[in-house]
């Protein structure tokens, strides 16, 4: 038990939205042969202790037959029979301290997993062929001069018999991609690869049939083996990034409660919402689709508009997806399905940003665009040159083929994916989920940071301003507040600490709490609820018997680590500014607390994107950090973007990486990205150097299959080792 116990403390504070309990995964339960089956995404599990706790806890539930957690991707597969509600499983995990959300098996994960297995199988076949052909080739090289021509030809034929099917099977990945690119009139890295591999194989068959001395069977399969390693790592990184993005989206609690005409409730997946559905929004629930409120309510729109004060909505007003219900349950009629529930403006801006971003050219792509024509013309020139100087056709072809083989972009194709997967793996351990490989490159070159305020620099949850409330009042208000799950009540309970709860607290949704304190009636709630003059500047009032009502004010608190994190960014040479949709005085306060950062307040989503355009015009490469729906446009338009783990899913999908655990990770991401970029440039530099030495030797005709084998493997291994080298600033 010691190992299991030593690992306590693993579950961290859930970083998801405040006030949203375990979402009901019921819509994602599948029936299979009399069993119920459900796949949940569990966040926070990372050791044997977590594994034992989660599997043990779920198996202890009645009727559960199987519970197996995949620790690598955080999926928990549960099979059970009987009446156990799915909600209970999610709640069990929540109680153990892990975030859990339903995983939608239709999210395309299966297809990418199959692609990954295909690459892995191809890699295995190429590896098998490379090992066996090399075994025979080494005998040929070692026996040069002693071995009879017949034996040599026999060994070559056996090599060919292994290599040709292996190339046909494992090379498909490259041939298909190269053919696809050529048909569109473009050249990608797979064109020289396919050309080198097929020419080498074809030439070797001819050479063997003629009883020649040199065959390149080993080169063609070894080449494929190395390249497939790079390709597999790349696919793995993309799948993991994709899965991480999916899981984060799932954690947003994408379910809703639909009310039938007869008043019965049914939990459905957010994707099933249709326009005109009657929805019931529970207290603390996040609205999944744009809707028209049918009752009065109080919503937190900080993720939609950046405004940190709750907004009171009357029946008939529109509430946008992403708002959190702070009041009692209310009904609403959906205006659109969840997928269409984006303000049209934001959707358009997102699209514009995506187009801009896809125009970004990766370093590897730039390298290839110089590399491909150079290599091909060098090989062609070598062929023509030797032919012109009177060499026999056979020799000229041999030299051209060996030039193509020795310059094949092995190091180039390995250089980028290995660096990226190593960097992504390190970031993953720190709770930063990277969306794509080229995100790293863009993050590395950013020099100016634009922060959103609410939820990014601040906690995004209210904190009581304790100074203007007497200790007595606070203690009494807390007796009521402890009975409620309303965010403001919880803020009071948090400020007062642990203590007693008043007997028989009655909660009137949307208005407030009432209880008897020492024989007198105490009320905690809105101005109307306690009979205070209605003023806008206090969100909550407390009144004991007939005493004057006491206003309670709340503020959105700066994150504890914000100052240190921004200092770290400054040390990296980054400038930063705040662009927020919140009111002037609040933004100014936060900016002052951060040492007088530049700020813009009351910025609409359009203002935010305009600011980013202006920065771009100044020649700055901007990193946008934001969490709200109002930031989504800016996030997709920025040179690079980051979103915190509690952000809207739209914002998360618009950004390059999602970080959890706090602002320190913004600087950590930049550091890791810069380190990765340095490694990548080193590797490209090395590949260039290698080619500069190898090409003249090949063109001069000194390259034999033995030299090619050594040069190729040596350069690939060196590049891989350089990528794996730990960075100076990395943890551990």
């Amino acid at each position, binding site marked *: 038990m010691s*190992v299991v116990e030593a690992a306590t403390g693993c579950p961290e504070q859930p970083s998801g939205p405040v006030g949203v309990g375990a979402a009901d995964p019921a819509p994602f339960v599948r029936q299979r042969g009399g069993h119920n089956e459900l796949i949940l995404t569990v966040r926070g599990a990372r050791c044997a202790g977590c*594994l034992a706790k989660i599997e043990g806890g779920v198996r202890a539930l009645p009727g559960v037959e199987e519970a197996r957690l995949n*620790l*690598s991707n955080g999926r928990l597969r549960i099979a059970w029979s009987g009446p156990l509600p799915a909600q209970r499983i999610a709640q069990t995990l929540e109680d153990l301290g892990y975030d859990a959300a339903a995983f939608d098996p239709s999210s395309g994960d299966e297809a990418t997993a199959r692609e990954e297995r295909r690459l892995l199988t191809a890699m*295995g*076949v190429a590896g*098998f062929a490379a090992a*066996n052909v090399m*075994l025979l080739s080494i005998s040929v090289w070692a026996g040069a001069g002693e071995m009879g021509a017949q034996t040599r030809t026999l060994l070559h034929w*056996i090599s060919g018999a292994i290599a040709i099917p292996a190339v046909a099977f494992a090379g498909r990945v490259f041939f298909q991609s190269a053919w696809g690119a050529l048909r569109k009139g473009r050249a990608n890295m797979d064109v020289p690869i396919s050309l080198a591999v097929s020419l080498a194989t074809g030439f070797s068959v001819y050479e063997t049939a003629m009883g020649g001395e040199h065959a390149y069977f080993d080169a063609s399969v070894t080449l494929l083996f190395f390249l497939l390693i790079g390709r597999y790592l790349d696919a793995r990184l993309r799948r993991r990034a994709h899965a991480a993005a999916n899981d984060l989206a799932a954690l947003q609690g994408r379910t809703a409660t639909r009310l039938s005409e007869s008043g019965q409730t049914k939990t459905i997946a957010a994707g099933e919402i249709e326009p005109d559905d009657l929805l019931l929004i529970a207290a603390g629930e996040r609205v999944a689709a744009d809707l028209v409120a049918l009752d009065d309510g109080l919503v937190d729109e900080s993720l939609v508009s950046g405004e940190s004060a709750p907004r009171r909505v009357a029946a008939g007003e529109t509430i946008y997806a992403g708002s959190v219900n702070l009041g009692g349950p209310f009904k609403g009629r959906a205006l659109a399905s969840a997928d269409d529930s984006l303000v049209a403006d934001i959707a358009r801006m997102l699209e514009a940003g995506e187009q801009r971003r896809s125009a970004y050219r990766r370093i590897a792509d730039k390298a290839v665009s110089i590399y491909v024509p150079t290599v091909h013309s060098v090989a062609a020139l070598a062929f023509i040159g030797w032919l012109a100087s009177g060499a026999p056709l056979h020799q000229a072809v041999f030299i051209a083929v060996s030039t193509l083989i020795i310059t094949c972009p092995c190091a180039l194709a390995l250089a980028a994916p290995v660096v990226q997967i190593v960097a992504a793996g390190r970031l993953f351990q720190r709770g930063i989920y990277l969306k794509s490989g080229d995100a790293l490159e863009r993050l590395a070159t950013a020099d100016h940071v634009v922060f959103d305020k609410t939820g990014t620099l601040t906690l995004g949850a209210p904190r009581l301003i304790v100074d203007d409330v007497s200790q007595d009042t606070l203690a009494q208000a807390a007796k009521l507040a402890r009975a409620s799950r309303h965010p403001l009540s919880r803020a009071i309970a948090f400020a007062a600490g642990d203590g007693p709860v008043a007997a028989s607290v009655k909660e009137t949704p949307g208005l407030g709490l009432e209880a008897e304190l020492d024989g007198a009636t105490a009320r905690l709630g809105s101005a109307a609820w306690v009979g205070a003059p209605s003023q806008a500047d206090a969100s909550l009032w407390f009144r004991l018997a007939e005493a004057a009502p006491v206003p309670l004010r709340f503020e959105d608190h700066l994150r504890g680590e914000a100052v240190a994190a921004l200092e770290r960014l400054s040390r990296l040479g980054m400038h930063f500014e705040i662009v927020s949709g919140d009111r002037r005085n609040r933004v100014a306060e936060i900016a002052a607390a951060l040492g007088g950062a530049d700020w813009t307040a009351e910025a609409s989503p359009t203002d935010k994107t305009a600011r980013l355009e202006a920065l771009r015009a100044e020649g700055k490469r901007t990193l946008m950090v934001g969490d709200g729906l109002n930031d989504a446009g800016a996030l997709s338009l920025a040179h690079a973007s980051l979103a915190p783990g509690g952000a809207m899913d739209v914002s998360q999908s618009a950004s390059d990486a999602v970080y959890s655990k706090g602002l320190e990770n913004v600087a950590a991401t930049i550091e890791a990205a810069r380190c990765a970029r340095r490694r990548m440039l080193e590797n490209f530099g090395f590949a260039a150097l290698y080619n500069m030495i190898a090409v003249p030797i090949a063109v001069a005709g000194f390259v034999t299959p033995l030299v090619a084998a050594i040069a190729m493997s040596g350069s690939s291994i060196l590049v891989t080792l350089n990528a794996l080298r730990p960075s100076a600033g990395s943890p551990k």
Partner: protein
Amino acid sequence: MSVLLFLIPVALGLGLAGLFAFTWAVRTGQFDDPEGAANRILVDEDEPLPPKS
């Protein structure tokens, strides 16, 4: 040299055995959860504890 006729098939057979083992492992999902496999051996499932003899 006739020993080659015997040794080469043996070498190839060994290689093929390895390849089949690998493809079997890929197909049956042995590489799906490397981290879980590493951690699972640390989980104590002896409950109740077996009596000491």
